[in-house]
């Protein structure tokens, strides 16, 4: 697969898998208003995933559509970071992931808007407004939960502790990232780490939360190495399409 297709697929898979996780909150969030907020964020991510998967299929040139890529790949072919596949946990853990990931996406898309690849630049230009809102939503909740009651503070901190081992992987670049960023097509994720931390750390400080110090770190998602959770997620997401190929409604 060409490096550009791999790159688009990685970003698209991040968005697709996280959108599925957010969809799992519908009807069980703490309030119906949050069902809708998280569902909306998930829908924004699906929009990004569709554009990126479609583009990955075009660049690959093997005739695979967005649906082929979404529904007919196994977990070893999924290239998302492990962060997005971690089960939701409680609301605090979900919000912790939203802060981590939406801040990462915001820094990424802000830079990707300047890509010499017009499709990537276009997707990023549209998505940057969406993820700015996602980040705002997460930051408001982190403040309220972290600087709230004793229990909300404890659970917000626990959520951060759950998600933190998966943070480092977001900023690990490999040959694909480096070669494409030299051509100014992609953004080298290593460059996002500092601006990401300056944004996240200010939210944590205001919310009276501590940066977790994980004793291990996840890696391998970009090469198709995943936690056991992804297989279950894909089984649910792909079941209908695989049982009834070509079904539409």
């Amino acid at each position, binding site marked *: 697969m060409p490096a550009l297709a791999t790159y688009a697929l990685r970003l698209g898979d991040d968005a697709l898998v996280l959108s599925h996780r957010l969809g799992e909150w519908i009807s069980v969030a703490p309030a119906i208003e949050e069902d*809708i907020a998280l569902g909306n964020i998930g829908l924004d991510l699906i929009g990004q995933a569709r554009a990126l998967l479609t583009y990955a299929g075009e660049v690959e040139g093997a005739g695979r559509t967005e649906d082929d890529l979404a529904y007919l790949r196994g977990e070893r072919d999924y290239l998302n970071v492990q962060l997005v596949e971690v089960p939701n946990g409680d609301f605090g853990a979900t919000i912790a992931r939203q802060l981590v990931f939406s801040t990462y996406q915001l820094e990424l898309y802000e830079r990707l808007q300047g890509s010499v690849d017009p499709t990537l630049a276009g997707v990023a230009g549209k998505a940057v407004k969406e993820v700015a809102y996602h980040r705002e939503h997460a930051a408001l909740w982190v403040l309220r939960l972290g*600087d709230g009651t004793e229990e909300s503070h404890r659970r917000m901190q626990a959520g951060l502790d759950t998600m933190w081992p998966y943070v480092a992987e977001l900023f690990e670049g490999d040959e694909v990232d480096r070669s494409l960023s030299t051509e100014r097509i992609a953004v080298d994720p290593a460059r996002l780490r500092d601006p990401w931390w300056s944004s996240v750390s200010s939210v944590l400080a205001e919310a009276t939360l501590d940066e977790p110090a994980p004793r291990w770190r996840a890696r391998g998602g970009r090469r198709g190495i995943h936690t056991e959770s992804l297989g279950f997620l894909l089984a649910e997401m792909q079941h209908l399409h695989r049982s009834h190929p070509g079904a539409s409604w």
Partner: protein
Amino acid sequence: MPTSTWLVRPRWPDVPADSTSNGTTNGGGTSDQATTDPATTDQDRLQVHSEGGHGAVPTAGVPIHEPGGPARDWPLWEVFVRARRGLSHSHVGSLHAPDATMALRNARDVYTRRQEGVSLWVVPAGMITASSPDEKDSFFDPAADKVYRHPTFYDVPEGVDHL
């Protein structure tokens, strides 16, 4: 240590500290709650009612606010949307949120996801003083036989194009 009261009490002005402690519940969550009864005091109108979210959580007999503890549910807000520049804000519905900032975010998600508006207001439902259905006759009927209050009652003089 966390010290703020984000989730503990709504932050609109003058909510008496003890006004939420009597265990009253309200399963409807509609704007009826803002209706003024002649006997209703300001304090009653500012009261925060518990509401059971999706109906999955029992509310009957559940105190909505233990003194010093968290409120059982979020206060109600009325939402107003301006559809376009030049139009007024119109009431579109209500929602629950822990404070004004979150109410505005929730309103954005609940009421403007299909590009319904360019501006949003949220107002604490308890702050609205409404006319009572019982007073409908005295409030509104006297206007019914005064047709001269409508512009259509008058003939427009010839030659006046834009009256």
